[in-house]
């Protein structure tokens, strides 16, 4: 018996040694993935937002100094660009400083709260009850809530309104700067957390993508359709659409999707598609990486085929909105279930024992 054990032990050692000597195969390196993800997607994304926010602030200041049609149009353009830049990185939720989803994009906006804040002139934008009274949803209401000319005259004589716009924009700028700075300071930490456990960078990225995909399906499409949540009890709810007043819901959705697709494919660098391909992940006979890429395209096409803002589309193009909802559901399952499972990543932000 002892002899047999000894032989077995010797075999194991030989096996291990031979494996060590064996030349490495085309190893996929998660550190490389993270490095590329940082350089190609995250860093440019947050810098883009930071710069666009600065431009937004300049445009807001010149509008407030001389409120006229040209300066308002200029501000509206800056709003669009900055909002689009936020969409691109909205999924990322690595720290309280870098997570901007709640602080800058809690939609639909609470217009009553915004009006009250302006009327009273006293508010604290960092409190929870002002979450829907700031950020881009607030700007959407402030800049597009009334017709162009009316907006100009509303701002012209109203010091409180001017101050509110200044404060909301300053808040956006400071949040965007803080997030960008956080990422600059944490590149090494991000790249070095190259495991797949809860809290690892790959684990966080997959969780963030799943969460944002759910937000797209539920809040951006499902709630306006009346499918999701009880508040509107199954009735179409256009007022819950993102960017309701500006009507940029589709554009913002597509920007958001672009950000998610960048996180998936690495935007020209190393992405999760390469990772899945390396692992040989299969989906009913086709490579899972291709299946997911194709589904991204299907979602994009479904959204592009909707010719009007989602707020209108829920009534005028209901079938197309339903298609978008279904395609998003498929993409959510592919990312949240198939991809995470093939990567051995757990969909959870907090650690727990398993067995």
């Amino acid at each position, binding site marked *: 018996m002892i002899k047999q054990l000894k032989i077995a032990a010797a075999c194991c050692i030989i096996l291990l040694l031979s494996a060590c000597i064996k030349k490495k195969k085309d*190893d996929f390196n998660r550190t490389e993935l993270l490095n590329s993800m940082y350089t190609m997607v995250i860093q440019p994304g947050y810098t883009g937002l930071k710069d666009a926010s600065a431009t937004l602030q300049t445009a807001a200041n010149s509008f407030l100094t001389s409120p006229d049609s040209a300066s308002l149009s200029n501000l509206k353009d800056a709003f669009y660009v900055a909002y689009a830049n936020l969409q691109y990185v909205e999924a990322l939720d690595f720290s309280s400083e870098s997570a901007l989803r709640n602080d800058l994009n809690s939609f639909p906006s609470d217009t009553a709260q915004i009006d009250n804040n302006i009327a009273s002139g006293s508010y604290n934008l960092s409190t929870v009850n002002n979450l829907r009274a700031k950020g881009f949803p607030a700007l959407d209401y402030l800049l597009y809530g009334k017709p162009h000319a009316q907006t100009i005259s509303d701002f012209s004589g109203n010091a409180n309104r001017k101050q509110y716009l200044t404060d909301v924009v300053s808040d956006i700028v400071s949040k965007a700067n803080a997030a960008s700075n956080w990422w600059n300071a944490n590149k090494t930490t991000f790249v070095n957390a190259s495991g797949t456990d809860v809290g690892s960078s790959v684990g966080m990225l997959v969780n963030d993508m799943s969460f944002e995909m759910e937000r797209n399906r539920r809040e951006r499409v499902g709630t306006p359709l009346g499918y999701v949540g*009880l508040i509107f009890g*199954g009735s179409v709810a256009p007022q819950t659409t993102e960017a309701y007043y500006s009507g940029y819901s589709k554009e913002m959705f597509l920007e958001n999707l672009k950000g998610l697709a960048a996180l998936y494919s690495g935007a020209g660098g190393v992405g999760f598609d390469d990772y899945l391909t390396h692992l040989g992940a299969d989906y*009913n006979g086709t490579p899972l990486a291709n299946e997911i890429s194709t589904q991204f395209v299907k979602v994009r096409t479904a959204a592009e085929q909707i010719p009007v803002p989602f707020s209108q589309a829920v009534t005028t193009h209901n079938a197309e909105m339903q*298609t978008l909802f279904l395609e998003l559901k498929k993409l959510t*399952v592919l990312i*949240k279930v198939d991809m995470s499972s093939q990567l051995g990543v757990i969909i959870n932000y*907090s650690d727990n024992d398993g067995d």
Partner: protein
Amino acid sequence: MKGVIEKVKTSLLPPLGGGGALIVFRFAFGIMMFLSLVRFAANGWIDALYIQPKFFFTFYGFEWIKPLSATGMYAVFAIMMLASLFVAFGFFYRISIITFFLLFTYVELIDKTNYLNHYYFISLLSFLMCFLPANLAGFKNLRGLRGFIFIIQLQMATVYFFAGIAKINSDWLLHAMPLKIWLASKSNLPLIGNLLTEEWVAYAFSWCGMLFDVSIAFFLFNRKTVWYAYAVVVVFHTLTAILFPGIGMFPYIMMVCATVFLAPLTPRRGGGEVPQNIWNVINLKTALKTSPIGGGLVGTFFLIQFALPFRYLLYPENLFWHEQGFRFSWRVMLMEKAGTVFFTVRNADGKLFEVNNRDFLTMQQEKQMSTQPDMILQFAHHLADVYQSKEVYAEAYVALNGRASQLLIDPKQNLCEVQDGFANKSWITSPALVSNVQLSMTKQFSN
């Protein structure tokens, strides 16, 4: 000099041939439990698992088990910590171990989200320890004592052996799943990292793991191989602890508890008849003659444990898919299973809408529920209560051991119309059913 060392040794270590073996085990178990509980509390899990949730997934037949208030739950854990220390030092041993067993089992019964095989193991072990004379250092009746040690050894052996039997399946042995996925995900580990992405390594680990689990108990029982076997136990569990930190205290608990096999059969001092072979000890006839009730109870206890892992045979189709008869069977590390469930409720106005699971469940609860049909049913019934609804549907997508995700249950089944129980859940998809029910949510919503 030699005499001094011997004296120090005997004062520190009790004479192992007497009650000492049990004292060592009792001490190791108590300390291990204390440390586990401290770790549990330090991780904030008392709050996260027993105070934060608004809804708890009770076990079938144990719906009456309810969590206490926050203060109550902290008190329960504080008492458990104290009891485990008391057990370690033999302080009010009997009452302490009974307290520990009852409270630990109570906590485990609160929410099946948190079910782990090693928690079940601790419940069983602490139950057995309630009957052990582990407080008697000078236990003279060696024959009786051997019997007690054997009971603990048998409990250990049961865990290993059935965990091994469970690994004899095609996913594990023929596809190296789920280890192929899990090992590749650990490629960042130093030294062995590169190795882990190799396919043959996953196969080697799978087969070695199965062979280890199935056979280790026999080598531990054999006096000639016990030390070698224990060394293998240490290597095996250390490796699993490094590779899978997510399994928590389990490797350490097994390493510590397996020391019970090292208890020497020859007493250092004190007399008594010395059985040379374990089989002399468990002479059923003698055991039943000395304590017919005790012997009968222990026999029943183990017979139930031996039967439970096979109850899955009463259900059709794939056990890993439907998980009927999965728990309490030492099925560990067998599945990479992930899922997501969309619940749809018809409200009083007749409108269908999708629920946000996270409004009711913690992330951990949602994750566990999404792959386990009995939990999906429980949550569906909870939603029916909350929304006063008579129609709840679940569209659940699950991926198992590297296969593509597919529907876990019939999405057209109104879950309000079915009840939980031991009967086969026919609304769980089988491969034949899947092709027939490709749900169109569009269709459902336009109902």
